């Protein structure tokens, strides 16, 4: 099975994010998250792990859940009480706030998993290929700039260690000038070198001449059509009365679900069925 085109992944990611934003129902968000996880797992290259994205998703979800529980004091079912004189967090901890926090957490997880393929499945040059032609130079410049950020961190650590070996000790804010100034000078030097190397490789010298244009095949068209259909269905769900807004306040109620919308969320897992990477080591 041919790999899907980078733009197909980009369109699919945008569709999944749109669905997780357009709906407030935890049922649909959970389905989007599962679909995104299935796609990510199906297309993950060998040697890469889901541990990083999993930890990031777990951290974001836990933070959202905890914040909603601590700050949302509305609801009828009280689980616990914090002293009212505690600033911000004081007051009843309610089941409704927990449910709302859970829904927010599910939305975050779904969004994270939806964009994960762009970093874990695609190579950097494929992402640049996926960007519209008018934005490709900007995308390359931004990507190169972001690469410098990690370099600045490493330079900072090296300069600090070198200064410490020379007897430098941090004494107040002004003493850090002996570390910051060399770091800034090094960063400027690195950026100049990067710009010269990019120019030497023909950046912004005209259209790209030697790269293979990606073509859409049947599987790409199928995924694109499915993603577009899913977005349209969710965009029209409220005007057509298919989606009922879910709100746990003031009393928790079971979220409703429409069969068509549930099917649309499951349909986002289509790319997972088009992968033949089972059993790869």
């Amino acid at each position, binding site marked *: 099975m041919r790999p899907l085109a980078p733009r197909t992944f980009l369109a699919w990611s945008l569709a999944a994010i749109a669905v997780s934003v357009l709906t407030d129902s935890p049922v649909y968000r959970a*389905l989007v998250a599962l679909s995104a996880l299935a796609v990510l797992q199906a297309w993950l290259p060998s040697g890469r792990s889901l541990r990083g994205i999993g930890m990031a998703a777990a951290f974001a979800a836990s933070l959202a859940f905890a914040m909603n529980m601590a700050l949302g004091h509305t609801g009828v079912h009280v689980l616990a009480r914090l002293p009212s004189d505690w600033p911000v967090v004081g007051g009843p901890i309610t089941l409704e706030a927990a449910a709302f926090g859970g829904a927010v957490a599910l939305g975050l997880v779904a969004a994270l998993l939806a964009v994960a393929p762009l970093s874990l499945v695609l190579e950097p040059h494929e992402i640049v290929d996926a960007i519209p032609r008018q934005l490709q130079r900007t995308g390359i410049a931004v990507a190169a700039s972001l690469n410098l950020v990690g370099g600045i961190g490493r330079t900072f650590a090296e300069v600090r260690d070198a200064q410490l070996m020379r007897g430098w000790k941090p004494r107040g804010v002004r003493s850090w000038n002996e570390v910051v100034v060399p770091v800034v000078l090094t960063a400027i030097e690195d950026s100049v070198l990067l710009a010269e190397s990019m120019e030497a490789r023909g950046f912004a010298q005209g259209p790209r001449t030697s790269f293979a244009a990606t073509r859409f095949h049947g599987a790409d068209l199928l995924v694109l059509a499915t993603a577009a259909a899913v977005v349209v269905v969710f965009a029209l769900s409220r005007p057509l009365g298919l989606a009922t807004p879910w709100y746990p306040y003031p*009393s928790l109620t079971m979220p409703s*679900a429409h069969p068509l*919308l*549930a099917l649309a969320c499951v349909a986002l897992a289509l790319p997972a069925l088009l992968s033949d990477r089972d059993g790869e080591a």
Partner: protein
Amino acid sequence: MRLAASILAAMLASLGLTAVVPATPLGVACAGAGSNHATVVVEHGNGTVVQRCVAFDGESISGEQLLASSGIEYQTQTQSLGVAICQVDGEPAGYTECPGRSDYWSFWTWTGRGPWTYSRVGVSLVTLHDGDAEGFRYVPSASPAPPVSPDPCPAPPAPTPAPATPTRPAPTPVAPTSAAKTPAAQPTRAAPTDAPPRTSATAAPSPSVTPPLPRESGGSGIAAASPASGGSAATASSSGSDGGLVVAGLGAGALAALVVGRAVRRRRARR
């Protein structure tokens, strides 16, 4: 003796008249002035219903303004979702939490057709228009249910026709044929009052506007469909939601099986 008897008779007669003559109706009484009208329906926990019709100028009115204009006593608390209703018409007599933990004032809106809609926001964030209604029902927190259907606001009084000026026949008896006899002037009819039809305290639902709503408990907390359209609408919506949840459950199960299956296959391939 006779004086006492006559006094007693007069007292009894006055009580009887009071019973016969309608008291100030508890039903819809129009408060305020304006060309548009909206209704406030309050249903207490014991089933007692109070309705007020409020007239207002302008295209719309907020829920809180409508409640304030109705003259019904209430207490609120400002929260993140708007103003929450803590007490209406003296119920509950006292409270320490708003909304209450076990029972609370559920807030509903009605747009002139269809069933009541459970409001997700406070009364201050709701906007009503001419012909709309807002309802408050004191219910257990686990089973919010809509109040009774609102009675229509009374129609404005019809313009009173100008009474015909009575003309007396000419006093001259000479020409009986020429003097046209005009009929005696009709006694001026009293202009129809604004008083709405008397409604009982339990406010039997008006048959004219909205058929009575079945009282559902639990569920999604969204107002049930009117029985005039059959309980079929309510049944359809709930069955649709159940079907959606079934599809969602099956889909989630299939996706979970797919993910787990791939993970197992990858682990075996690595070995």
